[in-house]
């Protein structure tokens, strides 16, 4: 009897493990899509490192200049775009001046997409923001970390013109902005190389400028040592980091809405690992006996 049970169990686990991969894919689709249809309000706990980024921006007096480097492409949009939007809302609410640039060719366009979204807000509309006065998009330039290094001497050498071809000297916002000494904070959204690590290495540690960042979740853990040493004010990690930023800002947006899906997806992955390991151990036990 017992023997038979074992036999049955074995085939059960083995069968379970051998199911078609596509069934697992289907599970994930359901786990992520279904929760999107429910509006569940969840408490988003804020991590200390996200608070660091928020405070770095919040503590700037009105009129301060923030250099915002958009170093990502649409591949990471779900993670970083909510941060970009929240950042612009935050900056404009606090009357900060934003200088946008990108070390990735797609970055400045991602900034434009976020701006288009943020400009729909009534609060932002009411501010009647002017391009060239309240914000400017310098565009992309090739050269990775060397660009960061060079901007320490002069922005104009890396960016002779903004993204629309206007010489920097003719842009009111850029008047008196020669290098990092004339900006109050660098805000960096990064999905890899070049990104936050390069900003720490080439801007923070050489020119002693303050840096706050938002990263994809894959990258974020590697930034913690920089936060611990104070080289980096804080880091928002992935979509969750975006949701934390939105929560801190008091303007819940897309990232907060997505958190229910995210939670269910994590639970399903954990469940998969548990099932897989149960099968693994019961099969190993059987083999041993």
């Amino acid at each position: 009897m017992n023997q038979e049970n074992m036999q049955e169990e074995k085939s059960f686990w083995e069968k379970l493990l051998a199911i078609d991969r596509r069934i697992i894919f289907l599970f994930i689709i359901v786990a992520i899509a279904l929760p999107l249809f429910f509006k569940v309000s969840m408490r988003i706990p804020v991590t200390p490192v996200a608070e660091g980024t928020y405070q770095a921006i919040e503590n700037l007096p009105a009129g301060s200049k923030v250099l915002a480097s958009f170093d990502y492409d649409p591949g990471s949009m779900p993670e970083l775009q909510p941060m970009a939007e929240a950042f612009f809302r935050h900056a404009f609410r606090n009357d900060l001046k934003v200088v946008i640039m990108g070390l990735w060719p797609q970055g400045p366009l991602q900034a434009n997409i976020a701006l288009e979204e943020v400009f729909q807000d009534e609060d932002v509309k009411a501010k009647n923001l002017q391009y060239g006065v309240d914000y400017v998009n310098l565009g992309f330039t090739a050269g990775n970390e060397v660009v960061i290094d060079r901007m320490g001497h002069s922005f104009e050498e890396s960016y002779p013109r903004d993204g629309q071809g206007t010489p920097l000297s003719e842009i009111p916002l850029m008047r008196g902005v020669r290098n990092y000494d004339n900006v109050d904070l660098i805000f960096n959204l990064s999905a890899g190389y070049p990104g936050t690590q390069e900003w720490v290495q080439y801007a923070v540690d050489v020119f002693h400028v303050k840096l706050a960042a938002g990263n994809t979740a894959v990258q974020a853990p590697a930034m913690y040592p920089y936060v611990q040493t104070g080289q980096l004010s804080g880091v928002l990690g992935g979509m969750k980091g975006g949701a934390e930023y939105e929560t801190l800002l008091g303007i819940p947006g897309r990232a907060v809405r997505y958190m229910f899906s995210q939670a269910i997806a994590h639970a399903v992955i954990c469940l998969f690992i548990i099932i897989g390991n149960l099968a693994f151990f019961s099969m190993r036990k059987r083999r041993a006996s």
Partner: protein
Amino acid sequence: MPEEEMRRIQPKFFRSRSALAWLIFPLVLLLSLAPLSSEAQETPGAEIDSVRQAEAMSPAPPDNVQAEDNPNDKGGIINISWERSADDGAGVNNVIGYEILRSAEMDGIYEHIGGAAPGATFFSDSDVKNKVNYFYKVRAISRLDTSESLPSAAAFSRVQLFDLSRLTLFILAVIIALAIFYFISKARGGKELYIRKIAGLEAVDDAVGRATEMGRKIFYIPGIMDMDSMQTIAGVTILGRVAKLVAEYEAKLEVPVSRSLVMVTCREMVKEAYLNAGRPDAYNDNMVYYLTDDQFGYAAALDGLFLREKPAAVFLQGQFYAESLILAETANSVGAIQIAGTAMPSQLPFFVAACDYTLIGEELFAASAYLSKDPKLLGSLKGQDVGKFIFLLVILVGVVFLTLNSVLDINLPNLATIF
């Protein structure tokens, strides 16, 4: 519309609408650029002027303006600092910004050179000539009026020959560089340099042995990058060792790769290994073959190969990206022993969780140095160990000092500020 406004201030020539125009009118381009060569005079604080009114109350002026050479540079920068206006932060005369003014003479005409946000006490003027005296004033601006500070003392910038703030870095760089040279030359001289055992390498024998017993194939994947990656080179070096064992055990090896240059190098490597094992006859070029350069295409092709051939052992050694998951999963599902190695931090977790042995980060390079006996690799590894030793020592002594300070209330030096 902001865009229109920008267009208006653009020189005529930059308004051209398409690349075509650029390509057709290069001459127009040259001519209209002419005004750029002589820099236009800036009008100081134009946008601030507009909010200013005549019958205003002045904010308190900034005080104690100091100007000095920016230290440790090639010159060309003067740092200006000041104490904030008493009205900065609150009140009817609240300061909304500062303007920095400069003159070549104390009583001369002061020109606007830049601005700073309220609360700021620092500005860096990086448009100065070396060894020329400058005087600075800072002007506080409220919504209604402005007030100027007294001028600073004369300041000039100059070239420094050595950046003293980077002395520690310099010394450490020199020590590590010398250590690397020393060990490379030692290794070149034929000296055996010790490298500790690496668990993943020890497991290679077992894996090859098992494949021989089972009569199934061994797959070796040297990453998806080209030969300019250090990780690929390390992977190919380790392939040499695996291939030699395979030749000795008379097992079967396949090396599907994703770069043509990697294919050529791997063939050389495997051929030499078979020769060294005394079985050159058993080698043929078809053991190493090219699949595709495309990341997911390569992963899909390997997926198919694994499922068809059901290899007994799979080696994943080199630089991997997102495809690491797909490879490790499929190899695992066909029951292969997997020995992985990569220096990609984002892929290491998946290898550790899905493979039997994993060479973690630098272990990959250490293994390849150990196997290849290449003096430059061995020497570098040893030189890096010297660096690690220094770091470990500094941490140890520094932590002990600080802990003693905090426990015994004494005053030992803080290495964190000295180092």
